[in-house]
């Protein structure tokens, strides 16, 4: 029982973290119709900035806040310099262009910070476990991630559903041409959305940094999951991204946690422990396949694609 609660929290934490990445991706994809493979690079930059600023200021929280601002600025700069050239072109051009950006950022990071990677140590109050229910201890840092991401999700909800910018974002997601025809400054809106997506990716990266360490190419593995979530949730839908991210987080974590035990009932211990990790990492893709069969547009389609 204790184990189940803890694994569910692990799943929730992982899912929410993926949501941060997928939210930015789905916004950019849905509104600008831009496939951005370099989203993972922004995630990596968030982590590198946080490790650097935290070392300079000596404070984890201050370092994280500065890193958030820095990734936002980098994101907006990337949009103005590179992404603007790609709008309205073929998806293949997007893939090529943003893949180039991945190589650029990886090499830039290697030049600036060196190939060894960095570590982002946690302050003592985050580096322990706290008692959340009688007898159940949970990593205070992972708990902090859950709280922060939930707050960000709430902020995004208010931003998208209750503000004028949000209205434009939603309008842009369902009909871009019409929004432009109505005299909205689409250029500025795009820069802001891309910056927001970058900041969300940076936040995910810097929060993962103390868990996974900071290294070149750290965004590439997780980017695949973010794309899977975008596809399951429906391109352009933040609500879809949240639901799909939670699904993926839970399936991944609970799969790893309980699938080996289930398999051991059927197979020998050795065979089960070898096969289980491979099979449980397939579960997410199975989910995607099933969703695509029944809802090819994703769970919460925005409807214009």
């Amino acid at each position, binding site marked *: 029982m*204790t*184990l189940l609660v*803890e*694994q569910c929290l*692990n799943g929730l*934490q*992982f899912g929410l973290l993926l949501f941060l990445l997928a939210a930015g991706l789905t916004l950019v994809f849905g509104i600008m119709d831009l496939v951005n493979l370099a989203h993972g690079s922004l995630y990596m930059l968030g982590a590198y900035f946080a490790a650097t600023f935290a070392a300079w200021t000596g404070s984890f929280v201050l370092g994280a806040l500065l890193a958030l601002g820095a990734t936002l600025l980098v994101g907006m700069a990337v949009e103005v310099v590179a992404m603007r050239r790609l709008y309205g072109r073929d998806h293949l051009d997007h893939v090529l262009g943003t893949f180039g950006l991945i190589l650029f950022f990886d090499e830039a990071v290697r030049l600036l910070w060196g*190939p*060894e*990677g*960095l*570590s982002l*140590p*946690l302050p003592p109050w*985050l*580096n*322990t*476990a706290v008692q959340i229910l009688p007898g159940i*201890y949970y*990593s*205070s*840092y*992972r708990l902090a991630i859950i709280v922060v991401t939930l707050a960000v999700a709430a902020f995004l909800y208010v931003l998208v559903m209750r503000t004028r910018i949000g209205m434009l974002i939603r309008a842009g997601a369902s009909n871009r041409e019409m929004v432009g025809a109505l005299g909205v400054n689409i250029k500025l809106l795009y820069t802001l959305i891309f910056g927001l997506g970058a900041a969300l990716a940076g936040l995910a990266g810097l929060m993962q940094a*103390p*868990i*996974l*360490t900071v*290294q*070149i*190419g*750290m965004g590439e*593995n997780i980017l695949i999951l973010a794309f899977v979530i975008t596809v399951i949730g429906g391109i352009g839908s933040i609500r879809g991204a949240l639901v799909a991210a939670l699904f993926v987080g839970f399936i991944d*974590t*609970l799969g*790893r*946690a309980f699938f*080996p035990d289930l398999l051991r009932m059927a197979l020998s*211990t050795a065979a089960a*422990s*070898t096969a*289980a*990790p*491979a099979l449980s*990492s397939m579960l997410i893709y199975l989910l995607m396949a099933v969703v695509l069969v029944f809802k090819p547009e994703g769970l919460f389609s925005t409807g214009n694609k």
Partner: protein
Amino acid sequence: MHKALVTMGAALLLTASPAAAQNKSVKIGFVSTFSGPTAVIGNNMRDSFELALDHLGRKMGGLPVEVIYEDDQQKPDVGKQKTDKLIESDHVDFIVGYIWSNVLLASIKPAVDSKTFLITANAGPHEIAGELCSPYIFSTSWQNDQTPQAMGLYMNQKGVKSVFLIGPNYAAGKDMLAGVASTFKGKIVGQELTTWPSQLDFSAELAKAKAANPDAIFVFYPGKAGVQFLSQYAQAGLKGKIPLYTAFTIDELSLPLQKDLALGVPGAQEWVNDLPNEANKRFVADFIKKYPGKKPSFYGAQSYDAAMLIASAVTAVKGDLSDKEAVRKALERADFKSVRGKFRFGNNHIPIQDFYLQDVVKDANGDYVLKTVTTIVKDSQDNFHDKCPMK
């Protein structure tokens, strides 16, 4: 058709000619990981190999040495491709390197088939010690099971009654966990293998280990994964509650990132930087001199030994590498000064050697360093040598 025959004939001539010529240089292929997160390890191996060549005056048995470095990207298919390339188009005399057991396993066949001597400077899958042992394969490291076996013995000494094992799901990970299990006398309450090398979040595994409530946790996570594991172990609140025992998880390359997290976490190793022999003192001092800001590691020590081993054989056969049988016998004698002190091969070309307990301490400058605490096991030989048909 006629043209094709001519081309084929020309190709045959081309491939045949180098063998006929007397060696003018010693050609060595070096396969390791030089890109991605574990490039640090490959670079350390290359640095140490280059240092050994400096110490040898860049000559072996009077012949100049040529080394071709190839990046395996930590992928078995790429490693095999690079090995093929070194053998077929570069015609190397020796192939050295291999951090990863799965990469090595994919690469041994081309080496053995072409009768090219392969010296693994790290990977030690049980297959090459047992049924797949070959006159052409040598190791300057260990068989994977050996180091964790030493750790198992140490846990017995510490009175550990139950342990939970965690490691990556690939050839070496499975060997390592089997190694502990073979010497540990207590109960193994659980075992988790994680997807390698992509899985970096161990929350689910740590939660299961905690729930099993063992006396100790044993892990094997080489490279960056070791840093990630130690951070997450501390974040899960297990540090100070369930002691951690390791193999190949804390080394000079991961320590600068692990820092305090590694203090008090014991590991087993066949080489530690403070081993008191002359060859080692020279290796460590010159490494630090040649590469300021870097530190020698066991990966490097094994690569250094590999260079010295090859040099000893080339010298013994007076540079005539065409007589494979003579080269093999010379390699088997292992007539060189190893940085781990005494060095000899078993029948399967895996070293018979001592394993030490290493601990992390802070030195006078506030740097984190590894030091030898004690010898856990003397003259350890792997469990698979009986299965090797070579006598």
